[in-house]
């Protein structure tokens, strides 16, 4: 069949649906049928699934003239989705095509939710089109004879590639592709990505740098521009609007008319706890909404979430309070309005959320921004600019993630075993490991075989063995079984299931929260007030309670940082406030948000200044907490954490001192029980970029941050065993905190590559060393303005009230203890 004939099949199908294919869909069909790989840049709800399911099916038709009667077995295509929840929709769109075109192709889903019976059936006969997640794909690679499963696969589609790209799940995809390329020579690689700053790089990561696949690939852009309107909710009385806070409840009443005006409204919060509180408060103040509003976040039981999603589609809900759990996938046509509560911290996320409304071609998206404290209005103003300029962030891919590689090598050793020379070539062709050295590779092989780098005379380490023919293989059944349970790169805090005593699941909750509760305590979860009865075998038993409570579980990892693009826009907006007071007629008029903030800026100017582009502001003052030293780079919390620890280290070289460090997206604070000689700090040029890496490494803080990174690394690389999910098999003697492991490595094996990776990730992903360097260079060109204030200023307020702190010290432990003892809090 010619391409023209194939196209006719597709176009006539579109006609039957009364649709016309978009140019980007046709372009994708053409490229695919020409045998090309590619990356499709298209937003959710644009028909991207038809852009790729069609050529997959058409290609099958082309290769099987008698496709209506003859049906060769085996996987023809794999569709990778980051979210299990999306798999049903993807299956539906695939089945529409396969049924209507009478191909007889079967569509199957294989994710963590798939029952073991269905898995077994699939093992006998794989579906023709398989929808799966990166983790489940790796599990297939851990199956004996996996090369036979994939050998006739003609396509692999990685959906929402932008979501995976900057994560270790993305690395997992890279590794799986490197293997599949070798065993399925006919396979085309396709990615689908929303708009991000580094689309070209996204393609390179997917295909592998300098590979034949990259040479033979294309980037197709849907270019479906959508009108987005951003409306800030400006408090009526700015004078009394709080300077600090992150909940935004003060403006709750402003949301009511917005909800009443629309068919369905989504209210996006930044954390699950904020979501819980907003839902509760909405119901408390507006009981008439009972049954008409719902809540949706990642810790709520799956069935409840599916119910909420269905109810949005049925238009039976007025409003849903949600978190990023509703960022992705699933089209909700009835959503008319979106409210963002608090700064979304990133342009891409904000655009994604805005795009959830007006989800029909030609319709405009409306998003309201509700500030949780005064200065967040500056962020609102910056977001408007960002939307106008489409200033979307990059997603930074991981490099040399040895933990993921260790896991992958053991995966291969568990199934059919591997020969290192073959795998070295494949792995080296990936983006993540392109710069890995042969020494590092040998180190990793030693690590999985010997558990160390030197052959011990005595050792009982068991994992991978090298067989006589040089094949690396796991022969121990227990090791293999435990490894299969551990495949994946998403590491959460130990999660406990919350359920009623008489049965009925409510959701999951982090162990750290429950450990602070005593029986009888009441907390809010999934929109209910629940009394904690007991904890039993990883389950939390609760009953409904009528008692009022203020306890809301907080989930870790809820803290986001301002992206580089956002912080730049934020600074510009802020500077517009500084310069607007001057009389430069050529300056553009400040935004409504900046004008509304005038009372706050006036207060700020009473004690201090609102900096302009040429100024770097430092404020100092004293409260009963101690001496506050506050710096305002406006670079986002991660850069501030890094800069704060760098600065305190450098200060501590001048004289022994201990700081606790607090930071937010606007600046950071060094709080001490002693006063700091600020003039000395300024005289010593402590903001220099010289010796940056060394100084950062030496600051105690980097170790503490690396300790947190190490937790994920230890789990992913299989050094910490998390237990069998839902199986309640006791592994008592094998449980150890990754904290403890970190300390042991620090003391006994500091050159371990996985231990060092924790530091590297800290510098590259947490401290954002690259951004820090740029920020310091920017500051070097600014005039430093130091204001010695009598009272805390409006700018400083959100920072000094932050309770999450890091400690940095250059004093002797014994000296610190002596002073602390005096203040020790006794019950």
């Amino acid at each position, binding site marked *: 069949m010619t391409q023209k004939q194939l196209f006719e099949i597709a176009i006539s199908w579109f006609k039957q649906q009364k649709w016309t294919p978009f140019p980007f869909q046709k372009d994708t069909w053409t490229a695919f049928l020409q045998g090309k790989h590619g990356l499709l840049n298209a937003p959710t709800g644009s028909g991207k699934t038809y852009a790729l399911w069609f050529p997959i099916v058409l290609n099958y038709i082309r290769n099987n003239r008698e496709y209506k009667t003859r049906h060769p077995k085996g996987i023809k295509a794999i569709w990778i989705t980051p979210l299990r929840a999306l798999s049903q929709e993807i299956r539906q769109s695939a089945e529409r095509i396969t049924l209507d075109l009478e191909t007889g192709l079967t569509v199957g889903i294989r994710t963590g939710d798939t029952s073991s019976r269905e898995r077994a059936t699939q093992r006998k006969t794989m579906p023709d089109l398989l929808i799966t997640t990166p983790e489940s794909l790796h599990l297939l690679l851990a199956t004996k004879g996996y090369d036979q499963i994939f050998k006739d696969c003609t396509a692999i589609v990685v959906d929402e590639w932008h979501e995976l790209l900057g994560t270790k799940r993305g690395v997992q995809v890279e590794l799986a592709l490197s293997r599949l390329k070798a065993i399925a020579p006919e396979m085309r690689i396709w990615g689908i990505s929303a708009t991000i700053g580094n689309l070209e790089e996204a393609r390179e990561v997917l295909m592998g740098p300098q590979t034949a696949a990259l040479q033979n690939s294309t980037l197709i852009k849907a270019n479906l521009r959508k009108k987005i309107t951003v409306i800030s909710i400006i408090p009526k009385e700015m004078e009394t609007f709080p300077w600090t806070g992150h909940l935004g409840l003060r403006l709750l009443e402003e949301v009511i008319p917005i909800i009443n005006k629309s068919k369905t409204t989504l209210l996006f919060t930044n954390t699950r706890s904020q979501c819980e509180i907003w839902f509760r408060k909405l119901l408390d103040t507006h009981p008439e909404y009972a049954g008409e509003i719902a809540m949706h976040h990642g810790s709520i039981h799956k069935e409840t979430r599916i119910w909420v999603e269905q109810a949005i589609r049925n238009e039976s809900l007025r409003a849903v309070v949600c978190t990023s759990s509703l960022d992705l996938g699933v089209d909700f046509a009835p959503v008319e309005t979106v409210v963002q509560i608090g700064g979304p911290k990133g342009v891409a996320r904000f655009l994604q959320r805005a795009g959830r409304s007006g989800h029909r071609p030609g319709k405009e998206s409306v998003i309201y921004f509700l500030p949780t404290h005064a200065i967040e209005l500056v962020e609102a103003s910056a977001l408007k600019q960002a939307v106008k300029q489409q200033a979307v962030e990059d997603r930074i891919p991981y490099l040399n993630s040895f933990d993921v590689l260790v896991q992958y090598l053991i995966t291969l050793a568990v199934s059919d075993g591997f020969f290192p020379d073959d795998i070295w070539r494949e792995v080296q062709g990936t983006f993540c490991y392109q710069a890995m050295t042969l020494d590092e590779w040998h180190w990793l092989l030693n690590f999985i075989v010997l*558990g*160390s780098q030197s052959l011990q005379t005595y050792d009982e*380490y068991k994992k991978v063995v090298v067989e006589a023919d040089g094949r690396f293989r796991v022969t121990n059944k227990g090791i293999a079984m435990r490894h299969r349970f551990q495949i994946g790169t998403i590491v959460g805090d130990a999660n406990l299931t919350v359920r009623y005593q008489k049965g009925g699941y409510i959701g999951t909750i982090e162990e750290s929260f429950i450990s602070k509760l005593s029986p009888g305590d009441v907390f809010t979860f999934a929109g209910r007030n629940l009394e904690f009865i007991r904890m039993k075998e990883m389950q939390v038993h609760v009953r409904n309670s009528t008692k009022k409570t203020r306890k809301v579980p907080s989930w870790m990892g809820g803290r986001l940082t301002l992206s580089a693009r956002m912080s730049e826009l934020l600074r510009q907006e802020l500077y517009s406030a500084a310069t607007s007071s001057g009389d430069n007629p050529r300056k553009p008029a400040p935004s409504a948000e900046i004008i509304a903030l005038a009372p706050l800026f006036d207060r700020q100017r009473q004690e201090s200044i609102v900096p302009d582009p040429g100024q770097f502001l430092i404020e100092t003052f004293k409260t009963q907490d101690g001496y506050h030293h506050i710096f305002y780079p406006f670079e986002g919390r991660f850069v501030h954490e890094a800069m704060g620890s760098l600065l305190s280290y450098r200060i501590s070289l001048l004289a022994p001192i201990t700081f606790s460090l607090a930071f937010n997206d606007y600046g950071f604070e060094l709080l001490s029980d002693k006063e700091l000689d600020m003039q000395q700090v300024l005289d010593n040029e402590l903001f220099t970029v010289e010796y940056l890496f060394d100084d950062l490494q030496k600051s105690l803080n980097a170790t503490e941050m690396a300790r947190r990174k190490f937790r994920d690394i230890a789990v992913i690389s299989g050094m910490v065993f998390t237990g069998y999910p839902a199986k309640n098999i006791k592994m008592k003697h094998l449980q150890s905190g990754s904290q*403890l492991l970190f300390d*042991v490595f620090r003391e006994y094996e500091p050159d371990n590559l996985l231990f060092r990776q924790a530091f590297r990730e800290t510098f590259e992903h947490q401290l954002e060393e690259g951004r820090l360097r740029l920020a310091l260079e920017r500051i070097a060109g600014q005039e430093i303005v130091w204001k010695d204030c009598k009272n805390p200023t409006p700018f400083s307020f959100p920072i000094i009230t932050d309770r999450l702190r890091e400690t940095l010290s250059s004093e002797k432990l*014994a000296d610190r203890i002596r002073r602390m003892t005096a203040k020790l809090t006794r019950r």
Partner: protein
Amino acid sequence: MTRTISLQDQQFILHPSGAIYWPQQSLLLISDVHLGKVSHFRKFGAAVPVSAIRRNFEMLGETMAFFNPKKICFLGDLFHSYLNGEWAFFESWVQSSNLEIILVSGNHDIISPLKYQALGIKVVHEWELQGFLLTHHPEERTGFYNFSGHMHPAVTLRGKGRQSLRLPCFYLRKMQLILPAFGAFTGTHVFEMEQDDEAFAIADATVIKI
């Protein structure tokens, strides 16, 4: 740097390794060494550094050399799990130490007492000695002052400027002293100090009263 305390008219010396020496009895008390833990993890595929195994024995050696006791009593959790290669190290250490050794068994001690007895080690559930009760789990018994382990106690100190610090410690409460874990690969559990409780923290090879 050690610290001497007095309990029930007896002198005791707290050592930064986590051991306590009772001069009158020439008895060294050590709790929660968790020997074999590193090997146990390695056997199951978790590559904990091998050198941590050696450290336990070095620490034992250093502490013995410091006090030169006649007797040593382990307050439970001497071995972390089932028998493994570290037992051989332990055997040779026992043979070279030339001491009277008593093991008050703990929840982790699942190795047969016969194996200990073969080495001349006495295994008991508890030990009453001169008005002192030695156990693994903390206990209250009228007329006895209790030494125990099991809890791996630590304290968190808070200071001005919202600083905090977590340190392993000897924990003293009503008629009880809980020893810190001696082992190199053991965690800690933070105690909230009640009124009248006392703690001696270990920091920088020093024992410091809190």
